């Protein structure tokens, strides 16, 4: 259950990041859904990892102190999630 509470903590941090950035990316409303899609595609092991929590915490702290680099941090989060996406096994039809 340590993984579950870490996962819940990371989910809360992610929502905090999304809430903060939503108001600042109204000129491109497609960005936040894309970021959420990346989260949905990430593997559970990563989502409940300390590494992901560190990335989230760093991006959240920095975006709150430096809004002018908001897309840098959104991009960083997307990249980390993409790097840990679930590998979909393609089942080839015989």
């Amino acid at each position, binding site marked *: 259950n340590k993984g579950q509470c870490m996962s819940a903590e990371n989910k809360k941090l992610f929502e905090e990041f999304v809430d903060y950035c939503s108001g*600042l990316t109204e000129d*491109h409303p*497609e*960005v936040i859904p*894309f970021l959420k*899609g990346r989260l949905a595609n990430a593997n559970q092991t990563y989502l409940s990892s300390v590494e992901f929590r560190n990335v989230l915490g760093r991006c959240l702290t920095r975006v709150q102190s430096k*809004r*002018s*680099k*908001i*897309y*840098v941090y*959104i*991009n960083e989060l*997307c990249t980390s999630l993409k790097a840990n996406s679930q590998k979909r096994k393609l089942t080839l039809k015989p």
Partner: protein
Amino acid sequence: GADAPDDDDDDDDDDPENRIAKKMLLEEIKANLSTE
């Protein structure tokens, strides 16, 4: 007296690093939409 200029309203297009990240992200989203 005149109000202090609202200097914390930093536009995200001023920062070159942010501009590049924004461009890359929007291109990735566009590519993602075209493959779906």
